């Protein structure tokens, strides 16, 4: 995947590196869905939050290791996209029948149609990176959106 594609799927205004924390999962859904609406990845934030909550019913998106990957598939998604948020302090993320402390949230927006495969490949590749401790460690050290793109490129 090229640099253009990463920065198209993961836009600067959908990356927030210094949030203190969230009260709960609902708060982070609202916050990041709003960002995805701002960068025009989703048309309607509320519709997208509904899609996220639907996916939550199918199984946990808490992945251990301080990571959560909520994702929604919906007609309101214009293009596949990602929002990322890093918290200073972890919060309890309850998902399906599991719960755990979360600091890093990657929210994936997936359109109903599977046409935009290049973007989906970016999302899939990003998901794969999240099982590597070295990648998670690097997420803790970055200070800018540009540095985030760099560590993602390095991991491809």
């Amino acid at each position: 995947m090229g640099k253009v594609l990463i920065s198209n799927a993961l836009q600067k205004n959908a990356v927030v590196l210094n949030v203190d924390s969230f009260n709960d999962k609902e708060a982070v859904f609202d916050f990041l869905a709003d960002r995805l609406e701002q960068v025009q990845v989703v048309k309607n934030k509320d519709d997208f939050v509904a899609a996220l909550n639907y996916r939550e019913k199918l199984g946990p998106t808490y992945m251990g290791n301080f990571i959560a990957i909520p994702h929604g598939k919906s007609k309101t998604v214009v293009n596949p996209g990602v929002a990322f948020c890093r918290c200073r302090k972890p919060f309890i993320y309850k998902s399906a029948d599991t719960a755990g402390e979360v600091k890093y949230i990657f929210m994936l927006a997936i359109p109903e149609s599977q046409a935009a495969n290049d973007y989906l490949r970016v999302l899939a590749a990003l998901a794969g990176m999240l099982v590597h401790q070295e990648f998670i460690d690097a997420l803790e050290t970055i200070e800018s959106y540009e540095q985030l793109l760099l560590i993602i490129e390095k991991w491809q």
Partner: protein
Amino acid sequence: MQVIAITSCATGVAHTYMAAEAIKKICKEKNYSCKVEMQGALGLENKLSPAEIENADLIVFANDIKVVKAERFDEYKDKIVKVKPHEVIQNPEIIFKNIVEG
């Protein structure tokens, strides 16, 4: 040991690829050979051949939806371990739960 796996999930984007990576990582750490077929939103990728299925010592099904072309594995049911994608992501060792080492 030769490990093969099939991963898939409801949305076909996140868990499918995370689970695949988690299985490849644990096998690499243990020096086991590993091939993972991903049945995700991008279609069927890295398809397992009949020879690979026959020669595998362990077949991992990490799915929360139905496996596509599952009949390929009908003769090897005793080698299959079934897990949920989120389980293998959080605890990759789970794929070896039926294996007695040594």
